[in-house]
């Protein structure tokens, strides 16, 4: 079984309700996304930014056999990949934040990229906490955030993935974002 069709089978098992495949599928995506991001970033110059949407799409092309994939496969994939993207970035932010706290005095900056990165790390961790809190209150809104914010999915793609109308998705996104910011502002 090739890795493409393997992923496809896992995806379909997962969407058919078999939760046990989640771990296998998720760790595969996590590893693949991370690898793609790493390769992309190698050719980065300071100040460049990473297009997470492109990463997620590239992972899809790589992991899923296009000849056999159906539209809903892609949707399921994007949903899971969005979550994987979130985990990757939050892990990264956590590492950086910890490194900063444990690292003592900051060096003189000749290239402020790293310092700026540290600043945003804490913001992202706060956002992640707020998103967890939101998920407890309303799983659906949190899902929209994952798909939109981390996966870079369009409103139309989210509508397709969640079976809701585009206007509803847009409103969900607006509301979720307001909740998040408010929760972030409230946290110490």
């Amino acid at each position: 079984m090739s890795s493409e069709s393997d992923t496809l089978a896992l995806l379909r098992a997962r969407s058919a309700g078999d939760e046990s495949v989640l771990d296998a599928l998720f760790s595969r995506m996590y590893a693949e996304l991370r690898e793609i991001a790493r390769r992309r970033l190698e050719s980065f110059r300071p100040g460049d930014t990473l297009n997470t949407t492109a990463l997620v799409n590239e992972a899809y092309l790589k992991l899923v056999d296009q000849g056999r994939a159906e539209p809903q496969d892609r949707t399921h994939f994007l949903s899971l990949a969005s979550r994987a993207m979130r985990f990757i970035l939050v892990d990264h932010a956590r590492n950086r934040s910890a490194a900063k706290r444990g690292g003592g005095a900051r060096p003189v900056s000749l290239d402020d990229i790293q310092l700026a990165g540290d600043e945003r790390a804490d913001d992202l961790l706060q956002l992640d906490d707020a998103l967890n809190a939101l998920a407890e209150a309303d799983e659906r809104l949190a899902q929209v955030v994952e798909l939109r914010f981390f996966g870079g999915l369009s409103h139309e793609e989210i509508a397709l993935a969640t079976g809701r109308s585009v206007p509803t998705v847009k409103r969900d996104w607006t509301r979720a974002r307001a909740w998040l910011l408010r929760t972030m502002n409230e946290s110490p």
Partner: protein
Amino acid sequence: MIDPGRFRQVDDLFDGALQLPEEEREAFLREACRGDEVLLDEVRSLLASVTSSESRLGENVAEFAAPLISSFTGPGEHDEPPLPPGEMLGAWRIVREVGRGGMGEVYLAERADDAFHLQAAVKVVKRGMDTAEVLRRFHAERRILASLDHPNIARVLDGGATADGRPYLVLEYVEGEPIHRWCDARLLELRKRVTLFRKVCEAVDQAHRRLIVHRDVKPSNVLVGEDGEPKLLDFGIAKLLEGDGEATITGARLLTPLYAAPEQEAGLPVTTATDVYSLGRLLQLLLSGVNPGRPAEDPGAIAAARGTTPEGLRRQLRGDLDTILLRAMAADPERRYASALQLSEDLGRWMEGRPVLARPDSLGYRAGKFVRRNRGAVTAGLLSVLLVLTSVVALAMAQRRTAEALGQAERERDAAEEVVEILQGIFRAGDPMTTRPERLDTLRARDLLDRSALRLQGDLADRPDLRARLARTLGDTYRGMGLLEPADSLLREAVELHRTLGDPLGLSRALNSLSGIELQRGGGAEAVALLREAVALPTGDPHHLLRVRSNLASALQRSGEFQEAAQLYEAVEAEILAAPVPDSTLLSSVLGARGALAHQNGDFAASGVLLERALELDRGRLGADHWRVGLAHVNLAFARQRDGLLDEADARYREGVAILTDALGTDHNLRLNALGAWANVRSQRGLLEEADVLYREAIQGIRRAEGPSPGLAIELSNYGRLLEKMGDPTGAESALREGLEIQLGVFGPNHPNSGVARQMLARFLCRQDRREEGVQEFTEALAVLERAFPPDHFRVTEAREGLEGCGGEAGAG
């Protein structure tokens, strides 16, 4: 944090409110919360964070946490291990690693053989760059860079290759902060920022003269040291590092260098113009705090770091600075400044208040500059401003109704209405009152409208209800675009259809809209008749009725029925303030109109108080750059002008016109009317040439949009006075007579507007020593004014004194 028990209730209300037009949310929530203030506050605070969450969080994590994501390749993740302290690179000893980015590592190093411990920064490039070709270029370019000797450019001191073959550069060690942070930390105001930035431009220009392009100008490459001098880092380094590596990247381009010029992103040749673009971006960051790739910061904080308020900052940025930025950052390299020096010189012009190159020299623009430099020169002269004031305020009322009618139509929901809604969505894009000008493509909207109006004739013949609503919506939209002809015929059709259908609310709305057109054309009496019919209809909508009554007051005012207008306005204001949720939109219009009435009665102080209240109300609820705030400035300027406060009036006109131009575009009738009024103040201050330019623009625009309307008549009469002062009696007389003819045609001989226009002609004739004609016109004007105003009204006094001065006999008043 989020209380899951309460979440559902709060979020449902939040969702419900979001589906309503903004002005209805408060009422909806009050109703739904039934006195639960905590709940109400919670939903309100969520609504309030909708906008800030949009700017703070953005659409994607890549926007939100760009620097974090680009640091993904942090130490220890996959890169080479750092060079250990003490490692020697040529004559340089590594002290420690101080940074790591996408292109490699940066070390602090010191010269081993130097007693002074000269420090330097050593940049070691990543593996993968070390091909023979790259190394060859690297050494060639390094020699060129070493020849760059400028106090604001960090020097390249040395270079070589590490033991494992990776190239490195030794650069002058600069201790400092990125320029934008340095400025922010010191709360530097704009002029000081510009001064600092000009040094950067001049350094870049020096390098350009040696044909060295920086290629990567961005804040982290411009450090400011303790001595306050900026230093450019990494000159030309980007090119050194641009090996074959890039050519091997396949697939979609994922790099988005935030300060890169469009041609750079497109992979086209990089020239000195590329640096000019990046300098523009840097300037934008320094001035406005806009940092590409990062979420917008709080405007209050940005402004505070520049020693001003958000409004003050906007005002400073508007105009020349904005134009300079746009020129520097033009997408087409040909349209940018030809050199970094030219950019710097234009900024120098801005600092001295001279005309900048970044704009073709239109007369109006030069005039504006001239005025600023010659602020002291003021000569007094009295001109009629009464008429202008009336027309602008009334137009404001008419315009407001456009947006309102659309809002109301939107609220009517039934199955058939969906068609209307879809169309409205399209049309609203064409209404400048609800659309920002950058999104407005008037021509396209106009095409859509015209096509839909045609379809209305055919498709909906058997659906009079739908047809009535569509006709009204289309009519309002045409009116919002200032196209009165098609608006008129559609709204008349809507009136007839609603009347036949027996729909009082629809009829009232259509009458209301139609009256707006009549007012715009000067048909005050017709508007009054239409609105009296509307007021009497049993619509069952008290909110709507209040607005129609306010419009009736406005129409009465326009017809010269000042007494009844004043009473009606006061009644409406009292009712608004008594409502549980005061309609602040309507309140601001009523305040404005009452201000205009006070003005007409010669009570300029009271007028100023009312208009200032209106301005504050609008600024608070709409933000400083809303068109209505622009209009409020203009209205207040009238009052100040009449009070003799010409400096304040001029400044307020400038502010008001700037806001109106930004918000509504150059051809909107509100702006054109404001231009005419501004011209008036300038003429009063003796700035004749400048006034001439403004008048011409106003008259041309109004004539094109409205034909022979009262607004045009006012500008013509006032322009006549100016032409006379400029020594052109022939032109003056023909303008004054045309103005009077229009007033007579619109209002008839007994309206005060006609009286004032005639009086202006009379004064001219007397000054030209054509006393017989002058006395005749004065006598006629005085008779009209005495009927319209109380005997001690300034208009009457003026006319009487004028008549006597001309050698005529004033009656006993």
